[in-house]
């Protein structure tokens, strides 16, 4: 059985190498990858979408349906984790294994009581607001520089994790009020569905954005709504995943 595994690896390596060796050389600007769809996006993307960051343009406008499904995937991850039975928390806290001897002598067995280092706590609290502003800046500038809904969501998620680590999960959980959670976590798919519907009414195609110059502001508003939906929804989902896994 062990040999079977190794053989699988070797076979996979050989197959991949054979297949990949045949690809057109990458890095050249005239490879088929660069002359077809991508080239058109690069050429007309700025004019058609009003976004200078074409990755964001592809994500939100040209392939918005992909992003919708992506939002759904992360939403279903949350639902999946919530759907699983809660692990036996009691056992995972003070289970069969003894806490390390050093802890017993200094703080006693109540491991949760070990306070967080004030230095770390202070630094995280100091950085916290700046991280938040940075995440918002990343969201706001997503169409002109790297960043955008998901990156912003992930930075917010990381901020939440850091705060939960130093301030305890109860205080961190207050950032996402319990009553609002169910709404906020659904914000990603819902904003897409809603804006997609608006686009359907306006342009006749689901997730279409009005192309006329007169509707510029409307288009902007729609894109911003979707971006905020992605960012807030994603951040809330990541925070809840963290809380669920923390047990």
């Amino acid at each position, binding site marked *: 059985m062990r040999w079977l595994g190794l053989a699988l690896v070797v076979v996979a390596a050989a197959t991949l190498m054979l297949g990949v060796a045949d690809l057109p050389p990458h890095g050249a600007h005239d490879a088929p990858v660069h002359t077809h769809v991508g080239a058109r996006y690069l050429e007309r993307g700025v004019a058609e979408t009003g976004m200078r960051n074409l990755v964001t343009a592809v994500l939100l406008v040209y392939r918005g349906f992909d992003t919708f499904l992506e939002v759904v995937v992360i939403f279903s991850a949350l639902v999946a984790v919530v759907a699983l039975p809660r692990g036996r928390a009691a056992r995972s806290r003070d289970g069969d294994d003894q806490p*390390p*001897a050093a802890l017993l002598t200094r703080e006693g067995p109540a*491991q949760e009581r070990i306070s*967080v*280092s004030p230095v*770390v706590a202070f630094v995280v609290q100091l950085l916290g607001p700046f991280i938040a502003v940075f995440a918002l800046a990343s969201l706001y500038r997503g169409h002109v520089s790297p960043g955008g809904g998901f990156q912003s969501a992930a930075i917010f998620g990381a901020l939440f*994790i*850091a705060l939960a*680590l*130093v301030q305890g999960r109860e205080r961190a959980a207050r950032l996402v009020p319990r009553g609002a959670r169910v709404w906020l976590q659904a914000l990603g798919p819902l904003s897409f569905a809603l804006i997609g519907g608006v686009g359907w009414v306006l342009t006749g195609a689901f997730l279409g954005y009005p192309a006329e110059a007169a509707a510029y502001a409307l288009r902007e508003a729609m894109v911003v709504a979707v971006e905020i939906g992605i960012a807030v929804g994603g951040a809330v989902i990541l925070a809840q995943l963290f809380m669920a896994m923390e047990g």
Partner: protein
Amino acid sequence: MITLFWAAAVALLLMAFACLWRADVGPSIQDRILAVNVVGVKALVVLALLGIIRGHAFLIDVALVYGLLNFIITIAATRLIETGRFRSGASS
């Protein structure tokens, strides 16, 4: 100038190999995390170097996120270690 920056980046990568060795041999878990963190700082500098080499300021945003996350991972790991959350053989 640019060549100097490239050279610096290459030197940093070479140092990262040495740190990686430390991360591999340990001995204690904190040593490993420290080594990983040090590699992280070097990679952060490399990111900034790459941004300058390419000549786009927006590339430095990546380094900022990277620095933040490097910090947060380390804090998370140490926090879990010091509260004794990792069972069966804490490093002592």
